[in-house]
């Protein structure tokens, strides 16, 4: 059963040195197989492993036993059992994650990303596709091009995979009929053109019977093209193609073993570098030349895309993790606002306006995602209106970062145009993103300098500006305490302003509701107004439920250090509900009021508030005094 394409047992036995020599020059191809539950994906991968003798006798014995016990192929070997991994999944007969498989032929090592065909599909397939050079799209010959095929192809194209193989599987079940194959290929061609897949290679196969896998099958004399594996052995890999692009090195690690050595280490995203090359560091824009390419095995003459290297530069210039060293004549763009496709991967929906961590290249910055311009229906590619993105939804939105970052559109560079978003509270990876282009806000709007400074404003009022931010449940006593506090400050001749939640919603924020996204925007606007007022020298008192930690932290970040005083008005829910001054809890309990904090919308209590007020143990006046003690020492 050993096929000559895989390994030559005779050569191994006779001349191992020569065999090793050949194998040191193998290249590597990473590919993804896409298909629905019954398309025969696992069977195909199992077949590739089996044919390449990546299965040993003991595993084979287990496979034969398993095939008889839980297999779906009667007494024959069920190849799918080879690749269905975790115990729970095996019971259910479905894979639920991305699994990576390995096999090798004489010419190449292959890494296969195997992703399951069910609901979590988008998330898993996008993950598997992100590192793939090529996609094998499986179609069941009996069923033809289905909705799933369209979805797989759309995602493959979205993730920038240039090489597509259309594997028309289960040809044995349609009598190896050429007409069936031709019709499917022609259907697919029409659709592929619509979504931007210009070229693909169609191959009629049977994963179960082994037709056109390693060599040309006698069952398909009408098919003249390559069999699947010989094709996979020959296609060009991305890392090689990337060498023709300009040099880019995201700096991952600055290596400073002593004062005399400063190396910049990272993986080359594209291009080639040689000592003497002129380079530019972004975003600073400083220029220098490459002095050495330092390696454990001695200095190198050149390094190419895909290699992890350490460079030294001729000049002592500032360069730290996250910056990008580029060819000096072809620098990257730098921006802080982008249009991007966002693939949401978390159970908790996207919150437009909330700050997430954005990791791109070797840098992590704070970034906000705007309300989606549209969501894409992955099955039909239609654009839909959307206010947010749910798990597995894909949309296009504006991303704003808190500083300028060097980047490349994803179509030019996966490494410099692909990013992930991380929730600041849970640290979960909540989204993947693909930069389309920069929105040139940064270049068009500048800061106008003013002559009268915020210090001047404050000194005229003989006070230190501050924001006293009261947060707590509805009915906790925020407005009462805020009012008492402002009265006392006024008596002390302090210039104050009270921003109250209900009042602001009658004017500035009358367009906002109580969804999570609207609550975020509500707090952001109040934060900006409070900031302007502190610039004017005022002591601002605010009374807002402001239920989410992220947004309170966002407002804290807007203010000058020390000017933000978070006051947690700590009233147990039961007490607040009992008071129910405005009758809102009753309404919420009866279902007349949705998204009510504490009932069907969460309240995230502060962890490090400057002041905590226990309203069950303190009167509003005492609370106000406590705050004044902190405010005016």
């Amino acid at each position, binding site marked *: 059963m050993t096929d000559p394409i895989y390994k030559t047992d005779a050569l191994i036995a006779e001349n191992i040195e020569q065999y090793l020599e050949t194998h040191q020059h193998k290249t*590597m191809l990473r590919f993804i197989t896409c298909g629905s539950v019954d398309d025969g994906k696992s069977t195909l991968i199992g077949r590739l492993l089996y044919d390449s003798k990546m299965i040993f006798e003991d595993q084979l014995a287990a496979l034969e036993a398993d095939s008889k016990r839980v297999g779906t192929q009667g007494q024959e070997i069920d190849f799918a059992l*080879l690749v269905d991994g975790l115990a729970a999944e095996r019971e259910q007969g479905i894979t639920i994650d991305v699994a990576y498989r390995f096999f*090798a032929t004489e010419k190449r090592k292959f890494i296969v990303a195997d992703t399951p065909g069910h609901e979590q599909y988008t998330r898993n397939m996008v993950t598997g596709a992100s590192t793939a050079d090529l996609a094998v799209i499986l179609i069941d010959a009996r069923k033809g091009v289905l909705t799933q095929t369209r979805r797989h192809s759309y995602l493959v194209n979205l993730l920038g995979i240039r090489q597509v193989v259309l594997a028309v599987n289960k040809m044995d079940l349609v009598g190896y009929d050429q007409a069936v194959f031709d019709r499917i290929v022609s259907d697919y061609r029409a659709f592929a053109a619509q979504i931007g897949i210009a070229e693909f290679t169609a191959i009629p196969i049977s994963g179960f019977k082994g037709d056109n896998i390693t060599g040309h099958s006698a069952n398909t004399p009408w098919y003249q093209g390559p069999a699947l594996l010989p094709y996979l052995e020959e296609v060009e890999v991305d890392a090689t193609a990337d060498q023709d692009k300009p040099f880019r090195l995201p700096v991952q*690690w600055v290596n400073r*073993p002593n004062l005399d050595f400063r*190396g910049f280490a990272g993986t080359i995203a594209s291009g080639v570098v040689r000592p003497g090359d002129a380079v530019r560091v972004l975003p600073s824009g400083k220029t220098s030349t490459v002095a050495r390419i330092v390696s454990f095995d001695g200095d190198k003459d*050149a390094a190419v895309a895909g290699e992890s290297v350490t460079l030294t530069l001729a000049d002592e210039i500032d360069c730290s993790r996250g910056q990008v060293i580029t060819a000096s004549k072809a620098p990257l763009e730098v921006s802080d606002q982008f249009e991007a496709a966002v693939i949401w991967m978390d159970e908790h929906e996207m919150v437009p306006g909330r700050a997430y961590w954005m*990791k791109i290249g070797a840098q992590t910055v704070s970034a906000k995602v705007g309300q989606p311009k549209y969501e894409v229906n992955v099955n039909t590619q239609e654009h839909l209106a959307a206010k947010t993105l749910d798990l597995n939804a894909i949309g296009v939105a504006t991303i704003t970062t808190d500083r300028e970052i060097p980047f490349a559109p994803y179509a030019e560079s996966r490494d410099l145009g692909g990013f992930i978003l991380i929730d600041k509270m849970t640290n979960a990876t909540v989204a993947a993103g693909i930069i389309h282009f920069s929105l040139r806000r940064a270049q068009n709007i500048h800061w106008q300098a003013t002559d009268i400074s915020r210090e001047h404003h404050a000194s005229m009022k003989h006070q230190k500006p501050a924001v006293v931010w009261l947060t707590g449940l509805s009915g906790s006593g925020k407005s009462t305490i805020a009012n008492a506090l402002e009265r006392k400050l006024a008596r002390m001749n302090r210039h104050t302003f009270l921003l109250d939640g209900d009042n602001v919603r009658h004017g500035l924020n009358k367009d906002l509701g109580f969804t999570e996204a609207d609550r975020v925007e509500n707090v952001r606007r109040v934060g900006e107004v409070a900031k302007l007022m502190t610039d004017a020298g005022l002591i601002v008192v605010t009374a807002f439920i402001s239920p989410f930690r992220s947004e309170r932290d966002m407002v804290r970040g807007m203010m000058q250090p020390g000017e933000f005083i978070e006051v947690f008005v700590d009233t147990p829910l039961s007490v607040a509900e009992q008071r129910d001054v405005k009758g809102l809890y009753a309404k919420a309990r009866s279902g007349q009021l949705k998204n009510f904090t504490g009932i069907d919308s969460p309240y995230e209590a502060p962890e490090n508030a400057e002041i905590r007020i226990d309203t069950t143990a303190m009167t509003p006046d005492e609370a106000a005094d406590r705050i004044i003690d902190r405010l005016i020492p």
Partner: protein
Amino acid sequence: MSVKTLTHLQRLEAESIHILREVAAEAEKPVMLYSVGKDSAVMLHLAKKAFYPAPPPFPLLHVDTTWKFRAMYDLRDKAARDAGMELLVYHNPEAKERGINPFDHGSLHTDMWKTEGLKQALDLYGFDAAFGGARRDEEKSRAKERVFSFRSANHRWDPKNQRPELWHLYNARKTKGESMRVFPISNWTELDIWQYIHLEGIEIVPLYFSAPRPTVKRDGLILMVDDDRFPLRPGETPEMRSIRFRTLGCYPLTGAVESTAQTLPEVIQEMLLTTTSERQGRAIDHDQAASMEKKKQEGYF
């Protein structure tokens, strides 16, 4: 104009170095778990390359069971010295006190010395990221393990709740008490490991090469009588056999193969022509198909 096409080993090496540097940059207190086997040897070699000319910016940790082959202890100390790295050796004090050993205590031996010992050592030193030499090709459930594998404050692994890993963007953020296990050689196969050792001239424990060694056959495994703690059963006398090991662990739990392979090319030759998988020599896996997965959830590497 492209100047060269990277080979599969060059691409694997680059990926592993990228992962090592990423952890050094993002973790507060990383450590490399060093088991003295061939996978550890490759991982250590990659770490030396990643940070050259500096030594790797983390220590090595050996969670010892006191039952490793003597030759492993010799190489362990030398390898750490050569790399210019601090070597930490941890013994679970409770296992030591109760005299836990592989002959009398079966799977409790692995649980206490390795699984518990590892958790204790990580807690003791406060390491928040630990490199391990596991590979995805070793076993079915490992094929789905992430490169950055996130562990709860009590070191548990939740296979249903793993972070998606896209491109080469690894999310290393965590809250206090949580930690990561990071597997830089996830995408290497056994053959890749051997080829790389051969190409790079990496020093490995001599037990990987065949030599006449004192052995007994027991329960279908050939065991080496490495020291006089080995309790011989009635009728057993150690016999000299020409053997070598495909994987190394505690000597009473590690089966040898009869072999004449004395050089690396011969070892690779044998491996390529062989018909049993690597883990078959390990007593630990045989219980049931999902045994590794259970052990991992409990915190075994």
